[in-house]
C-alpha cells in the first residue's frame, strides 16, 4: 500500500511561528528536528519537498471561464497543509504508527493518512 501522509501543523509550534517556537526548550526543538529526520530515514518513506508557509499560498478558481485568484490557502491558514511525505507500508496500521511519530501530531496538529490508488 502507498499512502500520502499530509501534515497539518494546526497550533503546533514551528520555526515559522518564532514566538511559539521560542517557548519550546532547546531539547524539545532538537527532538522535533530529530524526529522529522528519523521519519525521513525510515524505510518506505519518500520525503516530501519543503513547502513554504500557508500564507504564501495563492488559491485559483475558474468561474464562467474566468480565472479567480485569492490570497491564501483553500482552507483556513491554521488548517492548511504544512508538509507531506510518501509512505510505502504493509497496511494502515503501519501507516498510523508512523503518523503518530510525526511531531505535529502530538503538538496540536494532525496527520491525515490518504491511501494512493494503485492500478
Amino acid at each position, binding site marked *: *500500500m502507498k499512502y500520502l501522509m499530509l501534515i497539518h501543523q494546526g497550533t503546533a509550534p514551528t520555526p515559522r511561528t518564532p514566538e511559539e517556537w521560542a517557548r519550546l526548550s532547546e531539547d524539545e526543538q532538537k527532538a522535533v528536528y530529530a524526529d522529522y529526520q528519523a521519519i525521513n530515514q525510515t524505510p518506505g518513506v519518500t520525503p516530501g519537498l519543503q513547502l513554504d508557509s500557508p500564507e504564501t499560498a495563492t488559491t485559483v478558481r475558474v468561474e464562467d471561464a474566468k480565472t479567480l485568484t485569492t490570497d491564501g490557502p483553500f482552507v483556513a491558514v491554521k488548517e492548511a497543509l504544512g508538509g507531506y511525505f510518501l509512505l510505502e*507500508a*504493509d*497496511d*494502515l*496500521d503501519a*501507516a*498510523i504508527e508512523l503518523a503518530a511519530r510525526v511531531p505535529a501530531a502530538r503538538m496540536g496538529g494532525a496527520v491525515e*493518512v490518504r*491511501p494512493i490508488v494503485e492500478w
Partner: protein
Amino acid sequence: MVGTTSVEQTFRDEWGRVLAALIGFLGDFQLAEEAAQEAFAIAAERWPREGTPESPRAWLVTTARNRAIDRIRRDRTLAAKVRLLEVPETVEEEVDETTIPDERLELVFTCCHPALALDAQVALTLRTLGGLSTEEIARAFLVPTDTMAKRLVRAKGKIRAAGIPFRVPPDHLLPDRLAAVLAVVYLIFNEGYGGRGELAAEAIRLGRALAELMPDEPEVHGLLALMLVNDARRDARFAEGTVVLLSDQDRSLWDFDQIAEGRAALDRALALGGRHPYLVQAALAVLHVEEPQDWLQIAALYGELARLTESPVVRLNEAVAIAEAGDVERGLALADSLGPDLDRYHYLHATRGELLRRLGRAADARAAYEHALELVHSEAERSLLQQRLGMLEG
C-alpha cells in the same frame, strides 16, 4: 418445513466462520461476501431437495471459494486487487473441515478498526460475524435501512482502499483495539438476548475466545461474566413466545452451572482490578439472580454505571430499580426525565406504563403501553406488552 429450518439454522451458525475463512483466503471483503452469498443461495436451493451435506461449513467454503476463483478468472482487473496473484486451481473435492482456520477474531478486529466510524464498526461486525441482515441492524440502531446499507458499503470500501489489515493486532496495539471489539460483542449478545439465542451463544463464544487471547484484561472477563449470567436465564425469559420478566421467571429453568461460570469470570475480572462498565454490569447481573434481590444496591450500581457510561438506557434501569426498591414515584419521575433521549425506545414507554399502572393511573398507563406497542419490533416483546395492556382492562 423441518428441512428449511435446518438450512436457516446452519446459515446463522456458519455465516461468520465461512465469511471469515473466505476473507482470510481471498483478502477482499466485498469479493468474499459476494462469494459467500452465492454459496448460501445455492445451498438454500439445493439442501432442502438433496439433503444437507455432512459437513455444511466445508461445503459452503469450498463452493464459495470456487465461485470466487471463477470470478477472478473472468475479471483480470479484480485479480490484481486481491491477494491471489496466481489464481489457484478450483478445488474439486470439499475442503476438510479441520483445515478451515477459525479467523473470526481477525475479522472482528478488522471490523472494529478505529479508522472506521464506531457505528460502522458495529454494523459491519453484526453483518459479517453475526450474520444479521442489513434491515435487522438498521432496526437495532433505529436508523432507516438505506442509511445502514450505505454505512456498510462505505465501511467495506474503506477497508479495501485504506489497507485496513485482516489480523489480530500485535500486542502493543491490542488494548486500544479492545474497547470497540467488546462493545460490538456485547451488542451482538443483546441482539440475541432479545430472542435470537444463537446470537447470544455466538457473542459468548467470541467473548470466551477474547478471554483466552487477552487473559489479563479485566474488561474481557467482565463482559464474559455479564453475558454468561444473563444468558443463563435465557430459557426462563421466554414462555410461549412471550417475554417473562425476571420476577416471574421459573428459576428451575436457570442454568446454574453457567451462572457459576459467570461468577468465576467476574471474580477473575475483580482480581485483575479496575472499575469498568462491563464489570459493574456483571456485578449487577449477579445481584439480579440472587434471592431476595437487593434493589437498593442494584439501584446504586445502576447509578454508578450511568455515570460511567452516560447512557440514558442505564438511567432507565436505575429508574426501574428505584421503583422496585419501593419509591415508584421517584422511579417514574426519573423515567419521565429521559423522554427527550429515549422517545423512540419502546422500553421507556413500557416502563412508564408499568410504573403508572402501579400508581393506579390506568388511563396514563394504557397510553404509555400503546405508545410502546407502536415502536416494538420483536414478537415476543409485543406479546408481553399486549398481556400487560390486557391486565389493565381486567
